[in-house]
């Protein structure tokens, strides 16, 4: 009698477990694209002969229209929360800089010469109030080419008011 009881109990547990597994909602493939995604800022074709970040910092003039290639990163949090802005570094900077590694290329002096702040703005040059990760479907370490206007100040800071971005496919 006892054996029968335990057999029934064990069967019940297994059956319930099985039912539970079968009723667990399976993840349906969903799109990663946010509803704030704005395709008008995405360039269909990659701009030709873009400047590297380092070269652009050395030679570009204030208000010059320019194309710059680089990788999103350079700081522990390259994206600005809630605004369409981020930092981008030269490809010569290892992609671990700003996070865990401390190679010479990650030194603050080296980084300062190879980093640029990119922001997408409206007609009044106000930064768009949508996070760049949602607006442009970007993520950290993406290789991108941006088109925009250079903004320099007397302190050596370098910002690009971007109007288009080309996101290189992952290699």
């Amino acid at each position: 009698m006892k054996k029968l009881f335990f057999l029934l109990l064990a069967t019940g547990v297994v059956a319930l477990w099985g039912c539970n597994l079968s009723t667990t909602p399976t993840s349906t493939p969903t799109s990663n694209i946010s509803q704030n995604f704005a395709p008008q800022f995405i360039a269909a074709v990659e701009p030709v002969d873009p400047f590297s970040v380092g070269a652009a910092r050395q030679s570009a003039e204030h208000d010059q229209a320019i194309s710059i290639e680089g990788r999103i990163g350079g700081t522990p949090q390259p994206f600005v929360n809630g605004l369409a802005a981020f930092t981008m570094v030269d490809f010569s900077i290892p992609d671990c800089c700003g996070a865990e590694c401390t190679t010479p290329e990650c030194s603050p002096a080296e980084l300062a010469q190879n980093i640029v702040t990119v922001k997408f703005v409206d007609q009044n040059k106000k930064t768009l109030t949508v996070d760049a990760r949602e607006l442009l479907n970007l993520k950290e370490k993406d290789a991108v080419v941006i088109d925009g206007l250079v903004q320099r100040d007397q302190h050596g800071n370098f910002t690009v008011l971007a109007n288009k971005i080309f996101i290189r496919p992952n290699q």
Partner: protein
Amino acid sequence: MLLPWEYGVRNLARRPVRTGLTLFALATVVTLMLVVIGFIRGLERSLAISGDPNVALVFSLTAEDNPENSSIPANIPDLLAATIEGVSENFGNQAVSAELFLATRVTNEAGHQGFGLIRGVTNQAPQVRRNLRLVEGQWPKAGEVLLGRLAATKMGQTTARLNIGDRLDFEGESWTISGHFIADGAAFESEVWCRLEDLQLATKRQDLSLVALWLENRRSLGEVELFCKERLDLELSAISELDYYRGLQQFYKPVRWMAWTVVWMVAGAGIFTGLNMMYGSVAGRIREIATLRAIGFRRRAVLIGLMHEGLLMAACATLFAGLMAVMFVDGFAVKFTMGAFRLRIDSLALMIGCGVGLFLGVAGAIPPAIKALRAEIANGLKSS
């Protein structure tokens, strides 16, 4: 048929020493658990309440979110006030608080030394730190300091020795206590506040540790972050105060895990104590149990009767431990690396403590009772 309720109650009174000892052991276990849970809950509350979602902190980029390591130019507050839209404003004063923060050795009039957290602030500070309440005395003037409610604990001193008008020595200067403040249990309560310019003068520093801004909306926090990313020459970093304290919560996660481990270890020790006590108790009652079965009570009824006794004892012990914890442990200030905080015996702590206490009573009674009930009635009746 079950054993009458009075049977279990009277049984406890029949062996007062054994019952008293068991009560004491169970109460000690539950009290220890409540103290550790109170520590965890106090730490969690202190960190949770400290972050204001509307406050942005601007540090030096190299400070790694530690204000003690941060050094930023003195003109940053003005730059931020002029650049960032959405900084709260009252009667023409923007809610931008320039602060110099350091941990240093503090000596009281009696010569007692301890480490204190000192924050040099301007008159704008209360506009940003909005949970600050001056409960005694006045805002500090030149050469004066304002003490948080837990500042004395942080410095390892008793509040009785730190009254208004008393003097404290730090950074080569002598300071007079002008008042006391509270901040709803936030981390500031373990700090000593003084005028920014006085602290800069005493430390021979012209820089600041951080700037705190009270922002009207979350968008403005993005603007502060963007300002720091655009002005790379200033080497600044911005973080919301809420995220800063969330980071601290993550930092102290191993401590909390360790404390929870202690709770369960104490509970485990309590179960063994209870088992030991109940084994002893039941072992001396084998003849009584056999008699009960001989006169017709079933095994189940005797088992429930023994569990009833264990539960009754555990309930008394838990009640006593809970009262002790609420009266003497709740609100007790303890020193910690980040400052000081108060132990907190809240509803969750009481629920866990009482739950485990009652469980100890029931679980502790079952194994010895089963052992006793397995014995043959005839053998039980013959036992001495």
